[in-house]
């Protein structure tokens, strides 16, 4: 017992100061992607064909990035021979709409805080039920990591609970395959109104690496309205946390900026 207490003392406090302190990532970290159109050649179609994902979209107004389809792979950046696609170390990229993930530059309008009754209800206490529906298990591993002493999700009043009846919303991961479709719908229906839906990871947003499989519905189906979209494969725990805290109004809204306002 004394040894345990000694080790606890030696261990010190290991919880990140985030969001009050900076979020730091190593040099190679692949966060939010960017598209520099000034570098584009006239062969975007070739780049799109070489891409391992459908992150590069070609429209009438030129190329755009779909962060919801991005798999955050070095092969995506390598698909453009002109170096127009790159990954920044910015971990923030959760949005309030699916369309918000598609931009000409990779800069996104980050999720806004809930308003009115929902903010009053959930702002200081949010209970979520996790529904895994055809994933590789990677996103879930990062959601589990949010509970460890480093990220310590509970300090924000956010918890994963054991029943949809206890929940304010669901976090969906996975492609939503036929074998989980019914379970997802039933869980969603079992959560009392008002309820939130959070789609975490490329699979839940658009099918991810499995998008072309007949066993994938291409993410959360239309009948389940999503309030927060968190890209990643899998998203870094801080990407998920940043999205959740923005939704709850605990981090200031903004499309970009050096970092969350100090003291927030």
């Amino acid at each position, binding site marked *: 017992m004394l040894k345990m207490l000694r080790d606890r003392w030696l261990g010190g406090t290991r919880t990140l100061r985030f969001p009050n302190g900076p979020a730091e990532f190593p040099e190679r970290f692949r966060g939010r992607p960017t598209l520099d159109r000034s570098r584009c050649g006239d062969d975007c179609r070739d780049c799109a064909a070489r891409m391992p994902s459908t992150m590069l979209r070609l429209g009438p107004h030129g190329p755009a990035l779909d962060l919801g389809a991005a798999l955050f792979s070095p*092969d995506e950046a390598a698909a453009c021979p002109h170096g127009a696609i790159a990954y920044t170390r910015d971990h923030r990229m959760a949005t309030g709409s699916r369309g918000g993930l598609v931009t000409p530059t990779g800069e996104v309008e980050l999720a806004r805080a809930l308003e009115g009754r929902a903010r009053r209800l959930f702002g200081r206490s949010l209970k979520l039920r996790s529904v895994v529906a055809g994933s590789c298990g990677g996103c879930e591993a990062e959601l589990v*990591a949010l509970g460890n002493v480093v990220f310590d999700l509970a300090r924000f009043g956010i918890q994963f609970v054991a029943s949809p009846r206890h929940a304010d919303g669901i976090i969906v991961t996975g492609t939503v395959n036929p074998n989980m479709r019914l379970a997802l719908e039933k869980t969603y229906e079992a959560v009392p109104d008002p309820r939130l839906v959070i789609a975490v990871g490329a699979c839940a947003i658009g099918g991810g690496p499995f998008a072309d499989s007949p*066993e994938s519905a291409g993410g959360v189906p239309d009948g389940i309205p999503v309030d927060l979209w968190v890209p990643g494969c899998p998203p*870094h725990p801080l990407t998920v946390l940043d999205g959740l805290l923005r939704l709850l109004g605990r981090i200031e809204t903004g499309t970009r900026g050096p970092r969350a306002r100090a003291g927030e």
Partner: protein
Amino acid sequence: MTVATGRALRNRRSIPWAAVPCRPIAAFRSGVIDAVGAGARLVSLFGLADGDRETRLVAVLADDARGELDATSARVEERYPALTPECPQAHVFEREVAEQCAVTPEGHPWLKPLRRHPPDHLPSGRSVPPVDREDYPFFRIDGDELHEVGVGPVHAGIIEPGHFRFHAHGERVLFLEIVLGYQHRGVERLLETLTPVRAMLVAESIAGDTVIGHAEAWCGALEALGRVHKSPRAQAVRAAALELERLAAHIGDLGAMAGDIAYAPAAATFGRLRGDCLNLLLTLSGNRYGRGLVRPGGVAFDVTAEMAAAMVDVLTRVAAEFARAADDCFSAESVQARYEGVGVVPSDVCRDLGLVGAAARACGFARDVRSDHPWGAFRYAHIPIATAAAGDVAARAVLRRLEVERSLEFLIEQIRALPRGVARADAGGPLAPEELAVALVEGWRGEIAHVVLTDERGAIRRAKIKDPSFHNWSALAAAMPGNTISDFPLCNKSFNLSYAGHDL
């Protein structure tokens, strides 16, 4: 071994498809049964469409003592006599063949849907009625004093989906039926049909906590077929990444097990140390699970000199902190009382089911691809195998602790003395046509096996993926009878099997 191809099939050495004998089903059947009876292990058994109506069954066997593999095959139509009654190791494989190819292994004692999906490897000239995914014939026990407890697929935590049905007498479990398939994404068909660059990302997403292991197996098979030679440096970086993945998983699971028995200090410390290991992968590859690192020909990211020094510092600190926390945890009577004698897998069950990895080593079987079928850096740097005898939760926990210590030693040694060479060799060559390659990797759960067969144009004709969980889910079902339902979470965590890796 009684079945012979004439040319040596070894881990990552391909052979011509024509060299794989196609035998009458009776000879195929007795050949596999006799080989397994003589001590061989069934690494893989699968079907592929062969012509309009026929399915080719292919068995890959391992002679672990001699480090050799062997492949044999047979052509069947809609049914054949099952191997399982005489060779229980085939039991899940034959259910898989039945589901993927709509071929009935007659006489199979437990022929139920495995993942509940329509056949995806059906010969072109055959059609089958639609599959009712909700129709599953559950095992039933009748009796006034018995009850059933069903759990899942949506669980009371952040856990992958699966359904567990307990038959219990009071708290005592009589029988556990595990129904999986909720994570099925059609991985094998994607690997067989997507472009190489896209298939690579699917291979990294077979099991999200075994990114390196599966990427390593996938690349191993492709490199054998493409005659790609990697530099010693690339092999060493890959081996280091595989051991980092093992460290993260084992340390994390020791923490999760401590959490399940409410031993909070170990849960907190191990959870944090797991993060340190993941962050080393992040530093190396830009992703906490090592996505993007392993690519055909080597690794996409090299270890710089500063990075190597920093990694050794972190690993040295992790080793010290792990040793302190593990000493506290394993010497606590309350921990010992909760781990010992719970979830015992008898060693004959382990042998019959062909269990792999730490689950098998905890039953006394010194089975480890790193030493039985060594590849890459493991041919030169050996990691001693640890075993335990009891087969219970305590044995699996102690074993993981030992493996953490040995992996840490290996890593520090490897990273301090990384060989020279390019990180990634040119991997542009086409795959050899009509060849079969088997790539084995000792992932942190045990043996990962990828079998890849090419067609006459060098395109992938069949990709057979096996995660160690495929074998070891049966061990969890076998470990539960006699225990209480409340021991299930701890028992489950001591294996921590992959739903995604099983469901594909």
